[in-house]
């Protein structure tokens, strides 16, 4: 029998050693995790460590590998949300913001087109009626001039708005290409804002991913419930400053065209009629901090950017003595009177807040408002106890399975069975090592995948051993029989495992969450089990054979 080249054996040995050393940290999960957290905290504090952190750091020697596989939500506990972003919300805001521009563009043409007024129209469409329809071409041209090219890869060559004539109306709406581009921006913004808000809470390894055209998957380990997560990210925190037209206690009052009737947050039964188009919006905030007002009540101090500060300054200068409303998520937080011109773009929001509320509001304002509302399609909360139970059960199942398979293999193949069991141990180590290194996630079905691999991993060995038996039966000498056994079993091993691997790939592509975790462990398990069966057991068998030189072999 021709032995494997030395460099190959060394390589195989190195892979095994790497596997074992990279898998070890997972055996001491809690300690390594404490160590890693402390290391990250010290890193974040520029190397300054508290005594507790130093103690935590000492839990695990830093020269040992410290990568861990992450645990899925079903094992660690936490919350999972799948949200759909109402991307078309943004069209309305965009189109509404165009009205002043369109009006200004048509103003110089007054003598041609006559009076201009906004006609009622569905959301996302602007209808402007002109008095003299015969001057329509001039009006269209003027409005058309407002269009700008779409900034996106796919929308090259098209404009952001479509302007058409309908009777005496100029109809303005977003073009198809601009809608796509807007959708994309909305999704990016939403992702960014959700990320900011979740990060503010400082939880471990949240997953925030875009899925498909208009969905976002949010998974946060360690958080108490999906409801908690929802209240953290689901609040739109849309802040606007609007002109107040009037105040009423009639919930059914007609606010009039382009005005809104909004309830007061703190006064039961009081409503404000405000102008729909805001003076300034929260998007123009640069900072918001919890603070206290002159009566020492909790408040939020805010700062506008340059554009916002100018608009706010101009507005307050021109409207001293009138009321303006601070509107948060369709509720009037407060409606103070403008006592004087407010330059500089800073101010405070008061409104009977508790300290917690003012802190949360400041966080929300700082992170920015979500550009569009979200609908939650899927919510899951898994308690940490359930996860711990699952881990414990999975451990027991894996150990019992491993022990039973080992006993059975040794009873069936004797010494060769022992070789297979050693290879099985290496195999399990390699699975954990691979999961830790690529940062894979272990889920409950993933544990099942490992247990299944324990059962199936010996298959390649069984194929080889059975084949060696057959070759021995045809009276070949032991060395030749072993060699032929490996050679002839190879095609069956490869074909059988590639077909299984195909299903693992399909599972990975189509599955989500826990199922994907299963696909990963199954896929990794197939690769490692083929490696251990073809190379590791073979190397062991060859070493044993070279050492003992047996005249006969019993498999």
């Amino acid at each position: 029998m021709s032995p494997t080249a030395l460099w190959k054996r060394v390589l195989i040995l190195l892979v095994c050693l790497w596997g074992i050393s990279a898998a070890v940290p997972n055996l001491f999960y809690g300690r390594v995790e404490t160590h890693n957290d402390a290391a990250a905290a010290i890193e974040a504090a520029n190397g300054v460590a508290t005594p507790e952190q130093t103690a935590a750091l000492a839990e695990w020697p830093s020269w040992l590998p410290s990568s861990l596989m992450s645990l899925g939500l079903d094992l660690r506990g936490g919350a999972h949300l799948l949200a759909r972003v109402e991307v078309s919300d943004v069209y309305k805001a965009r189109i509404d913001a165009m009205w002043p521009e369109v009006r200004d563009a048509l103003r110089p043409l007054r003598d041609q087109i006559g009076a201009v007024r906004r006609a009622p129209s569905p959301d996302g469409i602007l209808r402007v009626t002109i008095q003299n329809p015969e001057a329509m071409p001039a009006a269209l041209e003027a409005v058309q001039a407002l269009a700008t090219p779409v900034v996106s890869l796919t929308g090259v060559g098209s404009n952001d708005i479509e302007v058409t004539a309908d009777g005496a109306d100029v109809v303005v709406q977003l073009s198809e290409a601009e809608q796509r581009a807007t959708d994309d921006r909305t999704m990016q913004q939403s992702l960014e804002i959700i990320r900011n808000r979740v990060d503010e809470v400082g939880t471990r390894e949240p997953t925030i991913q875009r899925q498909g055209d208009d969905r976002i998957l949010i998974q946060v380990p360690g958080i108490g419930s999906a409801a908690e997560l929802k209240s953290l990210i689901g609040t739109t925190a849309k802040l606007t400053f609007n002109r107040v037209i009037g105040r009423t206690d009639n919930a059914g009052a007609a606010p009039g065209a382009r005005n809104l009737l909004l309830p007061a947050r703190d006064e039961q039964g009081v409503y404000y009629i405000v102008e729909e188009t805001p003076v300034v919006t929260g998007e123009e905030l640069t900072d918001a901090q919890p603070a206290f007002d002159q009566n020492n009540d909790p408040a939020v101090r805010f700062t506008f950017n340059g554009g916002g500060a100018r608009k706010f300054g101009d507005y307050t200068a021109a409207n001293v003595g009138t009321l303006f409303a601070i509107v948060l998520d369709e509720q009037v937080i407060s409606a103070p009177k403008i006592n004087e011109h407010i330059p500089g773009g800073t101010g405070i929001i008061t409104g009977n807040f508790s300290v917690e509320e003012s802190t949360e509001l400041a966080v929300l304002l700082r992170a920015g408002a979500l550009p569009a509302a979200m609908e939650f399609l899927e919510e899951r909360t898994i308690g940490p106890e359930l996860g711990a139970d699952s881990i414990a059960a999975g451990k027991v199942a894996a150990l019992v399975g491993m022990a039973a398979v080992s006993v059975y293999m040794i009873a069936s193949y004797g010494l060769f069975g022992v070789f297979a069991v050693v290879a099985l141990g290496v195999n399990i180590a390699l699975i954990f090592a691979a999961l830790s290194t690529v940062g894979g996630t272990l889920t409950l079905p993933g544990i099942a995948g490992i247990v299944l691999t324990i059962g199936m991993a010996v298959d390649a060995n069984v194929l080889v051993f059975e084949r060696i038996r057959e070759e021995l039966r045809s009276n070949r000498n032991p060395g030749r029989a072993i060699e032929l056994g490996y050679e002839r079993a190879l095609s069956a091993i490869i074909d059988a495992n590639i077909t299984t691997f195909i299903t693992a790939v399909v599972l990975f592509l189509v599955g989500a969450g826990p199922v994907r975790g299963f696909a990963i462990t199954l896929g990794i398990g197939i690769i490692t089990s083929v490696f251990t069966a073809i190379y590791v057991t073979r190397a062991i068998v060859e070493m044993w054979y070279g050492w003992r030189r047996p005249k006969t072999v019993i498999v």
Partner: protein
Amino acid sequence: MAFRFRLAPEKTNFDFFRHQWLTFGGSMMLTVVAIILWIAMGLNFGIDFRGGTTIRTDSTNPVNVAAMREALSGMELGDVSITEVFDINFAETQHVAQVRIAPLDGQEAVTPETMAQVEAALQVVDPAIVFESVESVGPKVSGELIWKAVLAMTAASAAIMVYIWLRFEWQYALGGVVALIHDIFITIGVFALFQLKFDLTIVAALLTILGYSINDTVVVFDRLRENLQKYKTMPLREVMNLSVNETLSRTLMTSVTTLIALGAMLIFGGDVIRGFAFAIFFGVILGTYSSIFVAKNLVLFIGLDRGDKPKKASSNEFAEIDA
């Protein structure tokens, strides 16, 4: 000769076609029965596929299903079903129940307010109750998940079929896939018959069965291909019998090790994963059976074209002459 534990004698010579009408025919009958069961009884879909909410409760007090149902009856909820969960891993004082709430029409998810009301109502019944998990899936997503599951099964079967076709011949691909359909449909039939909960993890289990069963079948096919070159004049039926006999001890050995590991999962793995473990356990048994009694029978029915084999085989035969 040292003692060796064996599932099959060293050399077997069973005629696996002898009771073909019973083994293969019976299998086909069972598959049809399973499909009928599936259509007639339907599957007990989990919230992944049907939408709705499940709450897993844990308490030190015994579960009082009637009182819990009573507490929730006044609310505006969809159909509520409450079942107690048993598992050998539970401590003696641990009492777990599963509450399932069907979605109301036109509602994506249960609102947080409703959820809080439900939790409060259950806490009135049993103050020691803890909510271990709360999961809610909207009908929009669940519809897509069904579609994705079907897609996954079809894509995996098609990919396997193409691979076998490339590596072997089309008759093998067809035989392999019929065996897969047999395994998958009978498993689904069992889930329909006993109204076991059918959710996303069960689909993952079915896909795993797919992988395992084809693995088993391919090993037999691989040997068949080899023997067809070795024994060119032997009738196809006999070559098949020989191949299955030769691989029998491996087939049984692998099935048993896999079943041992899965058995451990089934018993000790906890109730959350039990359906999944059961599906794979059952599927592995079916997969082993089908690789012995189903896959090759179809290949025999269709017949193989053995005409062009000798040329390809000659080089192989030469290689087998060794000292």
